[in-house]
């Protein structure tokens, strides 16, 4: 197993390297570029374009740009003042030495931009996923045990709705109901806040304040997952329930509870856990619609804005870290699978 993991990790490094070349090319050759006007400016003047190209390093050919992104440019001379003569050494260290570059838009180090947003996304997404799992598992079990019961049919209907309803629509409706219409009977204020992580201007940590700000975004984000996970567990549970070893377990007189939870559920959970491991990267990348609707300062919005502005360094950083997360989650899923299912061997 250890050799297997070591081999996979080595492969990961190679894979990430190849991916980085591919992503860099894709990001750069996609139509449009960072030297276009945004917000209230339609254009950037030609003189400014020249200046920005030098400052962003876009005056170099693509392979050189990639090299600078990878290993930096503090070993080569660059022409910063535009006189055609490279005069001073660059200041970039490259991603291999932990320098992700700076954002074209804010001129802040990408690492700073990401570190300001990442905790907020992890916070929201962890709670959303935990809640989704905690609700989905009992629903999945009950629907499987009581297949075609009123509960099952109701839940099935809601699941299809949950998977079909777009997040941005659901979020808007929730805001309309809980922020625009319903009032808190004690204070006359809207029942729930429209967005944000805390009440602006509040000092210190208030658990209640945190919780009320979480309700709507978590609900919006979790609904789709609840539907998806519960459906998945239901069918996986149904598969198991009709297996011969369960009939044997019942036949030897084991109580129904033991049969269900010790024999059926354990086996039914294995594929779900794989699925969960594969969804882990969302904890890093966030949910764009939820963050936009509920004014949540997270990674999804950072990425979205970077994509609109063609902020290459931010795009590259988010993509490559996201890719690493996906590859590692896949590895984790494989390892967990081997651990949970003794039949699976990787030697």
């Amino acid at each position, binding site marked *: 197993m250890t050799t297997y993991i070591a081999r996979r990790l080595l492969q990961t490094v190679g894979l990430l390297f190849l991916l980085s070349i591919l992503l860099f090319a894709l990001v750069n050759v996609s139509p449009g570029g960072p030297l*276009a006007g945004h917000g209230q400016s339609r254009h950037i003047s030609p003189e400014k374009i020249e*200046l920005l190209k030098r400052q962003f390093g876009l005056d170099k050919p693509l392979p050189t740009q990639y090299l600078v992104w990878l290993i930096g440019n503090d070993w080569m001379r660059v022409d910063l003042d535009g006189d055609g003569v490279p005069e001073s050494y660059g200041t970039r260290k490259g991603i291999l030495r932990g320098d992700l570059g700076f954002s074209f*838009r804010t001129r802040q180090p990408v690492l700073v931009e990401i570190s300001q947003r990442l905790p907020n996304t992890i916070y929201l997404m962890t709670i959303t996923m935990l809640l989704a799992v905690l609700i989905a598992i009992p629903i999945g079990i009950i629907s499987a045990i009581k297949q075609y019961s009123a509960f099952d049919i109701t839940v099935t209907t809601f699941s299809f709705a949950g998977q079909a309803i777009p997040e941005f629509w659901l979020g808007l409706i929730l805001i309309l109901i809980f922020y625009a219409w319903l009032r808190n009977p004690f204070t006359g204020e809207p029942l729930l806040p429209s*967005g944000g992580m805390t009440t602006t201007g509040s000092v210190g940590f208030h658990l209640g304040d945190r919780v009320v700000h979480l309700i709507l975004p978590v609900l919006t984000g979790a609904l789709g997952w609840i539907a998806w996970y519960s459906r998945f567990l239901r069918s996986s549970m149904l598969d198991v329930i009709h297996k011969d070893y369960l009939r044997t377990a019942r036949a030897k007189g084991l109580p129904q509870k033991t049969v269900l939870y010790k024999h059926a559920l354990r086996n039914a959970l294995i594929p779900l856990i794989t699925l969960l491991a594969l969804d882990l990267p969302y904890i890093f990348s966030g949910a764009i619609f939820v963050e936009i609707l509920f004014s949540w300062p997270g990674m999804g919005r950072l990425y979205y804005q970077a994509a609109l502005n063609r902020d290459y360094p931010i795009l590259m950083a988010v993509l490559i870290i996201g890719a690493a997360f996906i590859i590692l989650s896949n590895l984790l899923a494989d390892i967990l699978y081997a651990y949970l299912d003794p039949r699976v061997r990787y030697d």
Partner: protein
Amino acid sequence: MVKSFERVMWVLAVLALVSGITACQPAQKQEGIVIVIAEDPPSFNPTITDAGYDALVMELVMLGLSDVDADGNVFPELATELPTQANGGVLLDEEAGTMSVTWKMRTDVKWQDGKPVTADDVVFTYEAIANPETGAWIAGLDHIESVEKVDDYTVKVNYNAIYPGYLTQFGGEQVAIWPAHYCDATQGFVSWNCNRQPLSNGPYVLKEWVNGDHMTFVRNENYYVAGKPSIDVITVKIVPDESVRKTMLINGDADLDMWTTEPVIADLQDKPNVKVSISPNNRWVFRLFFNLAAKGTTDPVATPHPILSDVRVRRAIRMAIDVDKIGQEFFLGYAKPVWTEFFREPYVCNIPRPKYDPTAAAALLEEVGWKDTDGDGMRECQGCGTAEDGYKMEMEFITYSGFGEPLLLTQQLIAEMLGQIGIKLNLSMVESSVLWAASTDGGIEQSGNFDMAIWDDGYGGVDPTDYLWSYYYSEAATPDYGYNYGRWMNEKFDALMDEAYTLDEARRKEVFCEMAQILEEELPEALLFTAVNADAHSARLQGVQSSTNDLVTWNAADWTLAK
């Protein structure tokens, strides 16, 4: 029955619990006012990014030598008066074609740390901007020879040309004066820390900036105007979704929404606690860009456009568009018809409004030699002179997605209107970073990869000179050198343009109106209408004046809060 009762009780219990938790929250109502905007400002330095959001917060904390009010009048900010030839502030050397401008500065303006704002700060700011490595670009920067300190409160700008835009070069919504003793020049203008942690000399001081969430500003106790500002705290909240911002205004959780769009204005009309401030001037003119060179090329002489290179076709197209109908249907009556670049003070030229006449438009196309002979509803060239006979009158019509639905509907309706006279338009839409990118990045406009386009632009401030140069001058037709995307070239216009770089206001007015005449005859662009420039605000917030010349915070020091 019992079960449903139980259910109702459950719902009530949950609601009570939620209400209980909300009631435990820290005090909801904040002091001061809340401004809601769609995205984080990139920094406090609009000179680098010009995103609008940067200027919005810059106006709260930083001053320039001058600023522009909502009516387009330039007024002194750090300066005691505006330098002119009459008051001796501007000296012309007609022979050499150069000039110098002397700014006298107020002596009572202080940075928030108590140090005075002096001529050193102006020189420092210029040098930081002009640094070829870490600087930025401002309009007319190449016309400045040097900026020198005369005494602590007098600064002189030497120009190597006559530059009529000098009044707002170190002010307005684009440029602020930065503190020499606080900003670290070695970090460079574009990336120094004071872009995000500014030292204030304006009405407010930045207290807190939580990235992506909110910024808090408090009253600057050292502000040079006694008794101002009157509002103690301004919170700028980042709320990306437009409908959420609208609901917050209605609920009283927001006091000011920046850049309110027509559909939102319509929704706010019957809300007694919300008012909408509309700019007295308009800047953003929706217009058709005609590519005079064949699609994908940039030379109108070697490869003329098979359809649009004939001015009569351009005239027919303009005649067939019902501007009033578009304004009523998609801009809810807030759009104003505009047909010349010179429609607002101080340069207004008398060009009669073109009439909407689809029948005459069709007749004109017939006359030119575009006829529908095969009865497919689309005209073909029959001796039109710009294309081979049988060439179909079919073109691509492009716009950008960032403006939103009203523009997309306008694009569709124009295609329909032109379809009525036998011109087929195929619609396309791209992001702004594709439409306006540099030609080396495949920018659609710069590389001439379009037939017809529609979008909005117009000059900020009061001086159209640079704007006109970039859009209509021959040299500006070179890819990535200007914005003459239609590649229209006219020697007479070029000569007038050169003449416009003068301080002789009377002559400038004449020159601009001669230009207006040429543009009307040649129709390189067809100007259609302006969209509204508005900012919605709560009724309790008074003194808000939306402006196309600046962001709505330009007069934040004058705002008051009704009890």
